[in-house]
């Protein structure tokens, strides 16, 4: 397999980032881990945004990924990180294959609202499940990897290195996907679905595959979130969580595979300092940041680097 220059750079940055984890303070390592986990979910949102669909319910797969990891640890005594994450992704894929049959019939705001409805139904089910701690959720057990158990205090750093590696791999894959014919087809569907049909392609089929793939990516993020935070609760499926993912997706823009990662990190940094410095009005800071980006950088932060900031009009 030959890597393009972009991909080499992505991998290089990942190596730098992982190495930086060894010298950075622990809180920063943790913050970056959480941000990267969120970024994976945002990648799922962005994948659908490229096809012109905005989901207000990506928290559904985020939550399924997280709960699958937590429940496998609790009830099946599985502790291996790789197996746990695979179970999470598998569960989300199954669910997405089912829901996708219905979801791909909808566009625009109806897609958004229906995705929200499904996410909220899962939320309702979890709130009702007292065996799973209802709204309190439950703690996720410590993980191992291929028989290796990280020593106490090392787990956050180890998880950081793993999530950086996974993110890099994911970035390369998604980069290729967006350049592939299926990825291009998604953009064509956003521009004009009827013309895509005239080309003899089935938009529904393309959207279906895209939906399932996005679910898998988001579930991976949910799994990582469960492992790093050590706790899961139904809030993961709540619509405000999903709204935050859309927020980050627009912050970064859809132009490049690296954008969601950077937006998620920036979001985490802005939020944690806003909470610390203005504990009573951090939401306002977030709101104004978002407005400023929409007004001045309508294509997201990424346009800062492609010189489109002035010209672009969505």
């Amino acid at each position, binding site marked *: 397999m030959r890597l393009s220059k972009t991909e080499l750079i992505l991998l290089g*940055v990942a190596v730098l980032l992982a190495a930086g984890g060894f010298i950075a303070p622990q809180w920063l390592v943790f913050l970056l881990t959480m941000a990267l986990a969120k970024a994976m979910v945002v990648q799922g949102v962005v994948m659908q945004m490229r096809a012109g669909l905005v989901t207000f319910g990506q928290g559904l797969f985020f939550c399924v990924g997280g709960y699958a990891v937590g429940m496998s640890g609790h009830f099946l005594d599985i502790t291996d990180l790789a197996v746990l994450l695979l179970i999470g992704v598998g569960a989300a894929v199954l669910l997405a294959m089912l829901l996708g049959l219905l979801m791909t019939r909808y566009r625009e705001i109806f897609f958004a609202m229906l995705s929200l409805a499904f996410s909220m139904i899962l939320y309702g089910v979890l709130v009702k499940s007292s065996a799973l701690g209802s*709204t309190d959720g439950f703690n996720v057990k410590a993980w191992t990897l291929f028989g290796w158990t990280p020593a106490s205090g090392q787990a956050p750093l180890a998880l950081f290195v793993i999530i950086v590696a996974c993110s890099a791999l994911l970035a390369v894959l998604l980069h290729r996907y967006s350049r592939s014919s299926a990825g291009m087809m998604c953009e064509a569907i956003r521009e004009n679905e009827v013309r895509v049909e005239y080309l003899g392609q089935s938009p529904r089929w393309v959207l279906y595959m895209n939906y399932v793939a996005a679910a898998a990516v988001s579930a991976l993020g949910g799994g990582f979130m469960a492992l790093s935070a050590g706790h899961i609760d139904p*809030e993961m499926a709540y619509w405000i969580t999903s709204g935050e993912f859309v927020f980050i997706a627009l912050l970064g823009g859809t132009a490049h595979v690296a954008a969601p990662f950077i937006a998620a990190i920036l979001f985490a940094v802005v939020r944690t300092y806003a909470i610390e410095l203005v504990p009573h009005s951090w939401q306002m800071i977030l709101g104004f940041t978002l407005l400023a980006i929409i007004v001045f950088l309508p294509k997201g932060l990424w346009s800062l680097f492609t010189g489109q900031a002035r010209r672009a009009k969505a």
Partner: protein
Amino acid sequence: MNNSKKSMLKHPLAFAITAAGLALSLSAGVQAAENGKFRIGIVTFLSGPAAGPFGEPSANAAKVLVEGLNKGQLPAPYDKLGINGAEIEVVIIDEAGGAAKQVEEFRNLVQRQKVDAVVGYISSGDCLAIAPVAEELGAMTVFYDCGTSQLFKEDKTPQYVFRTSLDAAVDNIGAARYLAKVRPDAQKVAGIQQNYAWGQDSWNDFTHSMEQLMPKAKVVESQMPKVFQGQYGAEISAISVKRPDIIHSSFWGGDMEALVLQANARGLLEDATAVLTCGESAIDRYKDQAPNGMIIGGRGPFGAFAPDNELNRWFKDKYVAAYKTAPTYPASKMAQAILGLKHAAENAKVESGKIPAPLEIAKAFKGATFESVSGTVQMARAEGHQAMQGIAYGEYNYDPASKKGSVQNVIAFAGECVTPPDGTTALEWIKAGFPGAQCN
């Protein structure tokens, strides 16, 4: 195409390096100074529906108390300046946003802000999520309000985690015991709870306690509306048509006030007696919109149920002077947590003016007995990490002349009467008929 690809090449690098560099430089620049002050991280709700009834009184109590401590104004045994002679510095953080975010912010408090102790957390989910992290980081942590029975079931060998508030089961055991004394002939019981862990657990504990203490009373209706719904018209009708004698509710905050208002306006509270386990927190706001005789609790000997001791008088006076209203139970609980922390830190046997290490504070906290605004607190459960105190219930009474609400017919139950012993869960203890309970 070619062109755009070329421009892409440069950018990820530029972007990622900027981001990483930005993050790293921030981390280097904003390390908290080790300034010899005792830094306490206070975490409570500053936004959302829990901010008004709980978060703000708690944050205000922390401010009043810390100011008093730093000036050495408190009565003995807390007359020593600050904590162990070191001035106290407070960092306040918003608890809103869910458990995962709170874990992140907790790590930031401990590792970036370098606080010496964290006092906070109202939400049970947050407490459950924070406990293992606190143990992992070796960070002195005092939970001041959350009530989940799961806390020390999950955190089996606690070292750094303490809870100065009571298990929520105590509220409902206490409520059932109070009913058994004042309404022994009640036949029909209905309940309305918020549909989340707190409401479900409360109802579970209450109904099982009732089975033991008032076996003749039957549950006729149970409603579980969504939390923060605000409109309870249909629920009130559904309860009304069952004609209950008693209505139990663990509602809190705005939901509780709305329920009382709507149920009272529709005559439900005239026909049935409401038992509100968190009812005390709105005692100054009900006015004539709640019927006299409505049974309210304060989740322990707090707020209007707090005893009249020197410490509490000082606290009440200062609080009223600063905020024009009497401290409600969340305020008392916050004061209690900080006082407990001070007591432990000063008994950690380090020289005056020095800040003891978390482990030293924890050792002194374990099993401690300290004076608080609510009377004497014993850290007598969960191997000395969980406070044991009594609980009191009383009847709301409104005086139209002074326009003030108060509690009457208060009955207090000792801690040994309502607290499950170590080694058994609250529900097991209730179902077994409260073995070993010592009641007055």
